[in-house]
Every structure is written in structure tokens, then in C-alpha cells.
């Protein structure tokens, strides 16, 4: 949010459609899980996103990179419509999940299918167990002993089980920041989401905790489609199959991660990843 010049003056020269280097676009055999078509977003009269068209492929990790205030988090927050909780906002365009119109879906059902992990760990002031069980109970997915099973399974998937199995009924606030973030991932996994959105999940964590979460993402992509917003380019290069570069509310370029980092098509992308601005 630090720089908000008139978008047109800076990127007026580049194409509306995102660039891709010829022939290296994401493999054709892959299936599209979630996609947006000409998605725009307004905060009041301020337009934060301009005609974003982007596809997320099933069981792939897609990273969204770009400087602060470029709209990557805003974009992520439209995908599960958590953006609607802020007043005076408007989504235009289309979002499609497995061929269904996301904007027409029942929002609680959508959010069960599209989970989200936030920038700062936000465990509820409840026990570890109740945190993980929350989504299961709210959605009426399980009862009694099967809640226990779901909790254990989710904590195992989030690689947290061994660290917390003896203190499931202690407050989640007693955990370290990295553990809290994995707890939030476990909490999101407990409702068995098809897509997992992560909004700079490691920005409040140290490198060891970050490495644990990145390892986790690799194991999770077997069952999930993952979208991760990050301002850490090394992280995008490490974990993502595909990467999209955002600048001033526009999608500048979307391609395989390797292409974005080694041979970007747009000058803005190159300038950003070589550290000339951002």
C-alpha cells in the first residue's frame, strides 16, 4: 500500500492480457480446478483489481508474487469470497470452481471447499483440539469419536501431531508462532478442502518454521490445489509449479515458475525478480 500512483501512467503501455512465453504455458494435460475470468474488484470507488483472468491447476501449487499493494492478497481473498466481509466492496467478472459459478454458490459451502490460511497465525482462543474441530463441527461433518479421528488426521497432515498429541486440550495460544500457523493449516485441512489458499503464510515465521511449512505444501498438493501469495521470491521459486506476477492490480505474467524466474516475457516481471523495484 506504500505506492499508489495512477495505474495507467505506469503500465499503460503493456497489454491487458497476461503474457506467456510461447510454447511453455502450463502443460495441456492438466485440469483446471479454479479459474477467474476478467475479475475486477472495487473497494468503494477504488479499483484494486483489473480484469484478472487466471487458472489454477488441480494438484499444483501456484504462487502469486508482486510488490506490496499490487492486489495479490485482494485477489486471493476474492477466491473464497472472504472479501465480502468488508463493506462497500464489489466483485465483477467470473470465478469458476469445477465448472460451478463461485459467485452463485452458497458462501459457507464454498468456504468449506476452498480453505484459507492467513498471514498472521489466528488460532481461536480455544484448545488445540477445539481449534481443529471447529470447522468440522460448524459444518456438521462428524460427531463424537469421529471428530477425534478427523482432528488427529488433520494434525498429522499438518505435521503437528507429534508436537501436540499430549496437550490437545491446552490453549492454542501456548504454541509457538510456527506451530500456530501449522495449527491453522490443520484447522483448514480438517474440513477436507479441495483448494487451499495461503496468504503470505510464512511472513511472520522464522526460516526453520518456514521450511517446515514449505515441506508441508509439497505433501498437501497430492489432495489439494494450492494457491500461495508470497512476497518472498525464493519461496515462490522453491515451492510453486506455476507463478503469476501482479503489479498495480493487474496480472502482468502467468507461466511455469521456471519460465517466470529464468526467462520472463514481460519487462516488468524481469525488473521485479531481478530486484530493480518492489
Amino acid at each position, binding site marked *: 500500500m506504500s505506492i499508489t500512483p495512477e495505474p495507467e501512467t505506469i503500465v499503460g503501455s503493456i497489454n491487458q492480457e497476461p503474457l506467456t512465453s510461447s510454447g511453455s504455458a502450463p502443460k495441456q494435460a492438466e485440469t483446471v480446478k479454479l479459474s477467474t475470468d476478467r475479475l475486477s474488484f472495487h473497494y468503494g470507488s477504488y479499483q484494486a483489481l483489473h480484469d484478472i483472468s487466471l487458472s489454477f491447476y488441480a494438484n499444483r501449487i501456484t504462487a502469486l508474487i508482486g510488490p506490496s499493494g499490487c492486489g495479490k492478497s485482494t485477489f486471493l481473498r476474492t477466491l*473464497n469470497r*472472504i472479501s465480502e*466481509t468488508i*463493506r462497500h466492496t464489489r466483485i465483477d467478472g467470473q470465478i469458476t470452481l469445477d465448472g460451478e459459478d463461485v459467485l452463485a454458490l452458497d458462501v*459457507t*459451502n464454498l*468456504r*468449506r471447499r476452498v*480453505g*484459507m490460511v*492467513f498471514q*498472521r497465525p*489466528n*488460532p*481461536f*482462543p*480455544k484448545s488445540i483440539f477445539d481449534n481443529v474441530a*471447529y*470447522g468440522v463441527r*460448524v*459444518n456438521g461433518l462428524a460427531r463424537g469419536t469421529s471428530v477425534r479421528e478427523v482432528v488427529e488426521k488433520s494434525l498429522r497432515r499438518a505435521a503437528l501431531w507429534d508436537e501436540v498429541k499430549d496437550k490437545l486440550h491446552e*490453549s492454542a*495460544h501456548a504454541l509457538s508462532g510456527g506451530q500456530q500457523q501449522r495449527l*491453522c493449516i490443520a*484447522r*483448514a485441512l480438517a*474440513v477436507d478442502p479441495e483448494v487451499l489458499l495461503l496468504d503470505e503464510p510464512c511472513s511472520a515465521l522464522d526460516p526453520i518454521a518456514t521450511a517446515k511449512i514449505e515441506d508441508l505444501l509439497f505433501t498437501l498438493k497430492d489432495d489439494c490445489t494450492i494457491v500461495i501469495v508470497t512476497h518472498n521470491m525464493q519461496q515462490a521459486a522453491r515451492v510453486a509449479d506455476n507463478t503469476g506476477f501482479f503489479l498495480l492490480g493487474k496480472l502482468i505474467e502467468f507461466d511455469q515458475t521456471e519460465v517466470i524466474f529464468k526467462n520472463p516475457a514481460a519487462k516488468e516481471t524481469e525488473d521485479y525478480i531481478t530486484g530493480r523495484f518492489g
Partner: protein
Amino acid sequence: MLQRRRKIVNVVMLSLTGVCTVFIVSVLFIILGYLFWNGARYLTINFFTKLPAPVGEEGGGMANAIVGSGKLLLLATLIGVPFGFLGGVYLAEYGTGIFPSMVRYMTDLLNGVPSIVIGIFAYGVLVAPRHHFSTLAGGMALGVMMVPIALRTTEEFLRGVPQSLREGAMALGASKARTIATVVIPAAIRGILSGMMLDLARVAGETAPLLFTSLGNRFWSPGWDKPTAALPEMIYHYAISPYDDWHRQAWAAGFVLLALVLLVNIVARLVLARTSHAAG
């Protein structure tokens, strides 16, 4: 030179704030000590178990006033807490636009209404039309007095719950109402509870509204529809009487009332302290 001046100004201001603080705190301690000296000395077991004795007869108590105060505060809680709590939830979570700011303004006005006026209001609604004073009317007056603070504390503590918790719950598929009931309110409940307790302690010492509503009674007051004694009202009547032993009883009642209010305050602060500990 400038350095010297700064130091002098600093010393003067620091002493000034220190003196003011000591003065304010010592007023509280003088009141406490005075009440203890004059009140606690005459406190006997009879005070808690016996009815008031006729003038000149030794050994009476204020059991009826203690029970009466308890009943009045119970009624006040039953009125003040639900209205204040639910109103606060509405203002913090659902209120947008002109209506909520009107409600907020009205609430602050109601908070500023002198308690004796609220007493007259309860008199007009529940005493005059029914031609008799009652516990019910007194409880209602105190309950109305509780509403503004109960409402604003609930609102403040709910607003203090971070937005990230609400988003966390809604991102898991919880509806807004469900989020408020299962995440937001539990996160704020200790603060709200302690606010309610302080609110209750505040109205426990109210005398003026009771003079028009529950009136006072030298005997037990069965049920809810008869005049009843209450501690503050007994203090008032005993203190303005010309009898020495009644004065002593008034001091004792004052001490008991203060002790109860202090107790509630301390419990409330303990509850609140545990909240901040859990959040940290």
C-alpha cells in the same frame, strides 16, 4: 541552561502528579478506614441474622436489608444484563448507518440521567398505577440504570476481538451468526463479565431510585410485590435518625455494603486479569 530548565520543569510536574495521585488515593483510604473504624466495630453476627430492633432495644440487625438488596440486584441483573448484552452485540456486530449511532448517543444520555429521575420513572410506571411500592419496581429502576454500561462494555469488548479471528471462522464455513456465537463472544466473554460485575457493583450502592420504588421495610418482604428494605436505603434512614445506636448500625451497614462492592470489584479484576493472560 536549557537542560537545567527542562530538569526543573520535569521535577515540578512529576511532584505535582505525584501529590495529586497520593491525594486521590488517600481519600479512598480515609473513607475505608473511617468506615472500618466506625462500622466494623459494631458488626456482630446479629447484624446478618436479625431484623431491625425498635429504638432503644439493643441487638437488632439488618438481615432483611441484606436479603432485600440481594433480591433487588438479582432483578436488576435479569433486566440489565440481557438488554445490555444483546444490544451490545447488535451495535458491535450488526449496526451500520444512522440507527446504531443514534442508539449509542441515547445510551450515553441514559447513562447521564440522574438516578433519582430513573427512580421517578419507575415510580410512574410500576408504583403509581398499582398504588403500592414493591421489590419489582426497585429492581426495574436499578436494571434500567445498568443497561447503558452493560451495553457499552459489551460493545467495546466485542470490538476488541481481532478481525482475523472472525475471518478465520468464516473461512472455515461458519456463518456470521455462528462466528459471533462460537468465536467472537467466547473471546470477549471474560471482559464482558467483569464489566457486568462492575456495573452491578455500581448500582448496588444506589439509594435515590429505591426511595420511590421499593421504599423500605422494617420486616421481611415475602415475594416480589411488597416494599422491601435494602442496605443503601437503610443507611440513609438510620443515618438521618436522631438515635446513636441507629447511627452505629448505619456505619456497620455502610461497611458491609462497601465490603461487598470491593469484593465484586476484586473478583471482576481477577477475571479480567486472566483474560489478558490468556490473550498474551
